[in-house]
């Protein structure tokens, strides 16, 4: 899919609007099928092992949503409660699958560059990129700290509420201390390359925004408006 990241973002937003405005399980199921077909059409990595692992948790949470509606909703018959549960679970699945489609086909840096070239102040754009870059760093640091805890016998092999609380408490400070050092290096590096010298900046690569992108944004806006008005 060669759309500009902004156009893709517009498609995602309109899809989420439609997902929330769907009133029957059938409508939500049709949308779910459409999103799944889009995954196939653009070659999104549905079979990726990391996504498959997450998918288990996603379906489990959808099942919890369904069960909670069926068991706990008041003032409705069994059929209505099943329908309400199915609708809620499908809404959740639609939002998650649409987001996965967007994330798996859009490089975060391209999205930031596209937004900056569309007028977003570049400080916010690079703050977004820095935040994305920090995610795996935090994950790796937290993993090392947890391993250090385990080596000291602090993290118990069997998780209990107390051990989870203790792990969280003992993980927070080391990770933050490491992150502060990294932030300082990043700040020196950015200033040393004149970040913030001028109110604007140029770009080595332009992220094109063509007619197809304009059409996608317009169509997404129209669908979102229709969904808000009609459903």
């Amino acid at each position, binding site marked *: 899919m060669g759309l500009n990241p902004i156009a893709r973002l517009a498609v995602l937003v309109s899809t989420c609007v439609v997902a929330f405005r769907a009133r029957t399980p059938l409508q939500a199921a049709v949308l779910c099928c459409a999103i799944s077909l889009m995954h196939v059409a653009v070659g999104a990595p549905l079979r990726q092992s990391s996504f498959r692992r997450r998918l288990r948790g996603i379906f489990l949470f959808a099942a919890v949503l369904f069960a909670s509606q069926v068991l706990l909703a008041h003032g409705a018959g069994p059929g209505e409660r099943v329908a309400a549960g199915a609708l809620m679970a499908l809404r959740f699945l639609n939002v998650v699958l649409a987001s996965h489609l967007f994330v798996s086909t859009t490089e975060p840096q391209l999205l930031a560059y596209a937004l900056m070239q569309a007028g977003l102040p570049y400080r916010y754009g690079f703050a977004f990129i820095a935040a994305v870059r920090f995610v795996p760093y935090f994950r790796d640091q937290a993993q090392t700290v947890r391993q250090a805890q385990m080596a000291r016998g602090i993290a118990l092999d069997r998780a209990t509420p107390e051990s989870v609380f203790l792990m969280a408490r003992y993980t927070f400070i*080391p990770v933050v201390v490491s992150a502060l050092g990294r932030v300082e290096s990043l700040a020196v590096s950015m200033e040393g390359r004149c970040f913030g010298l001028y109110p604007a900046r140029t770009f080595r690569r332009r992220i094109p925004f063509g007619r197809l992108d304009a059409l996608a944004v317009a169509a997404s806006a129209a669908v979102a408006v229709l969904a808000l008005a009609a459903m």
Partner: protein
Amino acid sequence: MVELLGFGAHYPQSASDALAHVDLSIGAGESVLVTGPSGSGKSTLALCLTGVIPNAVYARLSGGIRVCGVQPAVQGVYDMASRVGLVQQDAEAQFCTMRVADEVAFGPENLMCSQAEIERRVARSLKLAGAEHLAGRALDELSGGEKQRVAIASVLAMQPRLLVLDEPAAHLDLRATRAVADSLRMIQRDSGLSVIIMEHKPWRFAGAARRMVHLDEGRVVYDGPAVWDRPGRMHSPIERRSQTRPGEPLLAVRGLSCSYGERPALADVGLDVGRGEIVGVMGDNGSGKTSLLLSIMGILKPQAGRVTLCGRDITALPVSSRASHMGLVFQNPNHQLFTDSVWREAVVGPLARGQSAEKCGPAAMSLLHRFGLADMRDRHPLTLSFGQRRRLNLAAALIGDPDLLMLDEPFAGQDMKRAEDLASLLAEVADAGKGVLLAGHDPDIMAWCCHRIVFLERGRVMLDAPASLAIAELARRGLAQDYVSSALHTDGA
């Protein structure tokens, strides 16, 4: 290019000067190695040359400083950026984007250069740094050495006249260090830039500079041709301690294999550690050193193989049970400081394992005394110096009186004084009848402080020999040329 006259720098929170009465003159096109122990003022000097001090990091300056004909403190960081480029220790931490070409373009983009000019600078900088082939790659796919070369290229794109590198090899293995040193030689030859390399192990950059400046406690104590003492000439803790030899077998690893998902980490690894023995595990980054320690500790679950400690099969034993018999110290001291006082840090492990404070208290106090930390028992661990934190890590790992002590890259980024201090502590631990297994990739230090060396390559044991023979054996087998040439390299540039 650089003129310092009676120059000094003092941080407000510090009792002593970071730099004092420094006289230094560096000409255009000259390359200089600035060496000295940690805390000697190398990084402070780098930050002063770039104007980061005092404009972004405050310190009181005295004396005179001129870089490229201007005063950095007056010019400011932005103005100095086109005159002096600074490459920091951790390349990864300096990156602001996600792809190589974007990273190199980051500076010229901030300078509002045209698209054509940006492309020209990116191509030239990557070529100078020997990283042209990396242009289209994502940054997180690169090796440590490749990342450092991209960091250098991204600074070169600002077209500075002086390039300053602050411990550029601190996180690199020998192969990557050699690649970076080669890049620096190329840059100097092809561009005529002045280059200052801050490095506490100067032999790593042999040939990259003919002149060396040695800093100690903020003062210049040597300025002349590049010469140095290698660790081999230092006082070896092993020799000093009457040639301690391994006693009864302690740890036996047989056929150990494990992987991260589909990526194999260890394949059929076997090794032994005896009581009183210090065994070094060497190899490049990613060769499986850390994975081996994690597997022995039980944190990384093996797919095959057996681990025996004191004759008892512990392969199926959970980590919490193993923690009573073995200690593991990680590379970064900050990753292992969890509590708000030195005392709590020392006892947190035994308390978590169910011991009473009365039982573990005396042992903890004894260890704190032994490591010179008893007077600091109420201080927050993060207020300790690096060396004190490292000693606290060791004390915390030894609190349960484990039979085996494992350390992951304990010498990484440490100067020779700290390395010598740590090696002496490890020798004491081994003398007390414990086994020590430590991972590292610096042959100078490993050969100097270990009884035996196990060399890993792609998760497999390629060599297991006494330290004194290991280097020669590596050479005989034609393995790991960088390790051999580094350890056999003669003194001086």
